[in-house]
């Protein structure tokens, strides 16, 4: 299979203009004849459904929560980037582009990233027009803050609830289209299969989560915006419902899965407290603007933090990365924390934690300023740990947070299956091997509101509307497969809950394929995962029936997919014999423990084809015209 990214020719800064000009259009009166399915109602999916509805297309939008407003985008805290240069501090489209390619450790596609930076400004304009209450200065203009991996202030925010406010903006736009009858919303409906007819994506099969009804939906194009797969590690900062099912089902129907091993660890999460734990809570990275990270210099120091004088503290990020300090990118600060704990200098229960200390900021700026900036985060921390961070430093530890890998897409965000588009965290395209803070929200809205409305027309213009209906055999076949699988899950009647398998898989993934990976560990994971999967299908216990609201059944279906997908993730990690971004192979590091890329052999996107047996690797070579390949240094 030849992977053609369909990148427009010509200079980088003109590619998107060129693409927009040369792309085919669907004339306004024909748009209503086309049906588009959008799976997902987060920033990417909700944005796409609303924008496509505004253009006059007929849209069906699906989500598994009880309302489109609850998509996981709601949980983003810190902010959204845009190259507005409102601070007059030297920002530009080119700088945002450059920072993102460098931040991604030179494993993203330049043309996509440039477009992302180009449309970023329009996103902020649109959000303000929709009524998003961003933070403002006294003069009434928008306020900014800085985020990890950048030396300019380009992050827009709404207190610590930026994702919520952006998603509610999108939700209101979507609600307007639903009210107008242009979009039909299907909440509590889970996509369980993609239907491909003659090589083209023509619809989906879903399960109504209340009645259990299995249904077919036909369309002229299918857009997946189903978010990330972080919970393959069981514990992560993601909502507990996030899953890989939609993307993985599409993968089984022919869509290539790109770079599954690129997973991001977030450095500032609340450490684990016990076996019962169902998720890890993120403390927004924006805290690193005012908090200083340290561990005791001495191993096994059990003094309370206040008793440890400055001279006996190691502010290791400031020491190792003087120009970025506490704002060093996520992968770098996460590994530094792991190293400190591995050296026996961790703090708190289990010694798996480092301090994030506000003492200096509190004395410099006063309690009120800090309260204004971070009150809800301090509050959240206290609820979970019972500790007050105004009086003592927070304890933090890295956790799985975001997944850069996803379904392979070309410049138009179309997968290798014609008619199947993939947006937001579910695709692989913009963040390379590491995502910079505040760039996922930007990508979700860019893909949904400013890219897909243009690029989907190219495909639709070449397709007669309503060619295939749900009476086609492929729909029946797919429905039968879905029903059989549900029956199979219900009939195992073994001894272990789906959650217990999920927990075991997660622990295994975290230990063998988490913050640091090595060949021996990955090999053992490749033996353990299939064995666990086999046990699952012999010993899982799913109670209840398939004909009503059954959260156990939903969970079991998702865990079953994670048990297959986990193997693909590990296979990708073992194949990539280099360290880059979030993928750190212990064999490939410098003497100081920094990641060592191998540009000669691994400057490619690894896109995997499903075969039922050993997956086949297809490579899209990455070419860098603008940003020079360099060792990513934040010193």
């Amino acid at each position, binding site marked *: 299979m030849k992977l053609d990214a369909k990148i427009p020719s010509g200079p980088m800064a003109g590619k998107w203009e060129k693409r927009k000009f040369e792309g085919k259009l669907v004339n306004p009166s024909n748009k209503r004849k086309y049906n588009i399915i959008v799976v997902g109602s987060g920033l990417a999916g909700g944005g796409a459904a609303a924008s496509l509805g505004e253009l006059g297309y007929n849209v069906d939008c699906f989500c598994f929560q*009880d*309302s489109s407003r609850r998509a996981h985008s709601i949980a983003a805290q810190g902010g959204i980037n845009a190259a507005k240069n409102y601070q007059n501090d030297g920002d530009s489209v080119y700088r945002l582009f450059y920072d993102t390619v460098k931040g991604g450790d030179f494993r993203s596609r330049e043309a996509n990233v440039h477009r992302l930076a180009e449309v970023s400004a329009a996103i902020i304009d649109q959000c303000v027009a929709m009524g998003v209450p961003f933070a*403002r200065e006294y003069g*009434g203009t928008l306020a900014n803050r800085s985020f990890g991996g950048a030396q300019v202030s380009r992050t827009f925010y709404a207190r610590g*609830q930026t994702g*919520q406010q952006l998603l509610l903006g999108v939700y209101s736009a979507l609600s307007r289209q639903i009210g107008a009858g242009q979009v039909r919303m299907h909440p509590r409906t889970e996509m369980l299969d993609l239907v491909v007819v003659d090589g083209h994506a023509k619809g989906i099969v879903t399960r109504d989560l209340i009645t259990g009804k299995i249904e077919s939906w036909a369309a002229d194009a299918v857009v997946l915006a189903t978010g990330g797969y972080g919970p393959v590690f069981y514990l992560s900062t993601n909502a507990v419902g996030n899953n890989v099912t939609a993307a993985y089902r599409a993968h089984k129907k022919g869509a290539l899965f790109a770079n599954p091993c690129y997973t991001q660890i977030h450095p500032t999460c609340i450490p684990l407290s016990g076996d*019962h734990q*169902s*998720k890890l*809570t993120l403390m927004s990275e924006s805290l690193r603007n005012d908090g200083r990270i340290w561990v005791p210099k001495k191993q096994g120091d059990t003094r309370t933090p206040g008793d440890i004088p400055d001279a006996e503290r190691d502010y290791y990020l400031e020491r190792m990365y003087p120009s970025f300090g506490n704002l060093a990118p996520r992968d770098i600060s996460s590994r530094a924390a792991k190293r400190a704990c591995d050296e026996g200098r961790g703090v708190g229960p289990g010694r798996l934690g480092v301090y994030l200390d506000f003492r200096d900021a509190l004395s410099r700026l006063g309690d009120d300023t800090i309260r204004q900036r971070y009150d809800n985060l301090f509050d959240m921390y206290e609820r979970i740990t019972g500790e007050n961070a105004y009086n003592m430093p927070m304890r933090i530890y890295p956790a799985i947070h975001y997944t850069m890998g996803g379904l392979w897409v070309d410049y138009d965000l179309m997968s290798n299956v014609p008619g199947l588009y993939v947006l937001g965290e579910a695709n692989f395209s913009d963040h390379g091997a590491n995502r910079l803070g505040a760039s996922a929200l930007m990508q979700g809205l860019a893909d949904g509101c400013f890219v897909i409305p243009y690029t989907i027309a190219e495909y639709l213009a070449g397709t007669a509307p309503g060619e295939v209906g749900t009476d086609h055999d492929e729909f029946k076949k797919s429905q039968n497969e879905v029903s059989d699988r549900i029956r199979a899950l219900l009939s195992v009647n073994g001894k272990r809950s789906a959650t217990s398998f999920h927990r075991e898989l997660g622990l295994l993934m975290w230990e063998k394929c988490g913050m640091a990976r090595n060949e021996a560990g990955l090999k053992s994971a490749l033996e353990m995962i299939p064995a666990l999967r086999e046990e699952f299908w012999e010993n899982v216990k799913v109670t209840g029936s398939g004909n009503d609201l059954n959260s156990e059944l939903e969970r079991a279906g998702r865990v079953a997919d994670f048990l297959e997908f986990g193997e693909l993730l590990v296979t990708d990690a073992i194949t990539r014999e280099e360290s880059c971004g979030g993928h750190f192979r212990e064999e490939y590091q410098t003497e100081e423990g920094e990641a060592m890329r191998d540009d000669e052999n691994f400057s490619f996107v690894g896109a995997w084809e499903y075969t039922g047996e050993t997956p086949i690797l297809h490579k899209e070579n990455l070419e860098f015209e603008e940003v020079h390949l360099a060792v990513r240094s934040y010193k």
Partner: protein
Amino acid sequence: MILTLRIWRQKHARDKGRFETYEMKGVSPDMSFLEMLDVLSDSLVDRGEDALTFDNDCREGICGMCSLTINGVPHGPDQGGTVCQLHMRRYKEGDTITIEPWRVSPFPVLKDLAVDRSAFDRIIQAGGYITTNAGSAVDANAILVPRADAETAMDAAACIGCGACAASCPNGSAMLFVAAKVSHLAHLPQGAPERAQRVLSMVSQMDQEGFGNCTNHSECEAVCPKEINVSHIAKINREFIRAAVKSIF
């Protein structure tokens, strides 16, 4: 800790439902309330019984999905938090805890502790937005918003749409939810052109959904996990009168 849990179990929307009592051993103070229910639910599955159904997703107080009434109080005893943020260190050995779904007729129970809140979506669809198509916006800094207004708008916009306000109200009113959206948009210049129509449509939809009238009990403010102030209800009342007067003349 050992606790006694009285939990509402209901097979489906038409089932009458009843309380079941469970003895819960080994509860750690570090567990969240929902994690405790996970453990209980898992043990039910182990015994071959139906798992416990309760809505939840983000488990950090922002998605608005979790919706439990604990000892008669939506979201339980902690002020300004959702039930997914509640931790078991709030309880002590031997406590009995009663757990029910939201109890308000426009939110029918689907199963056990999960309810149907689509009425809230329909209220927003009736007018809880600003009409602006993607791509049509002016430069963001062309619209200046005084900081105080932006802050007040944000206070109201913090609503997570969980429905605790309606569940706590003796009249089953959704006024705080509707007021939060109306007030958020009324405090911003972008919201001005549709200001009158918005409040009329949303209030009319709220009535159609069967929510009761607001008679200023303020129970809603007390349980709101985002501590949204009833002053927004005063704001919506002014907005409503202003719009109604305008529609007469």
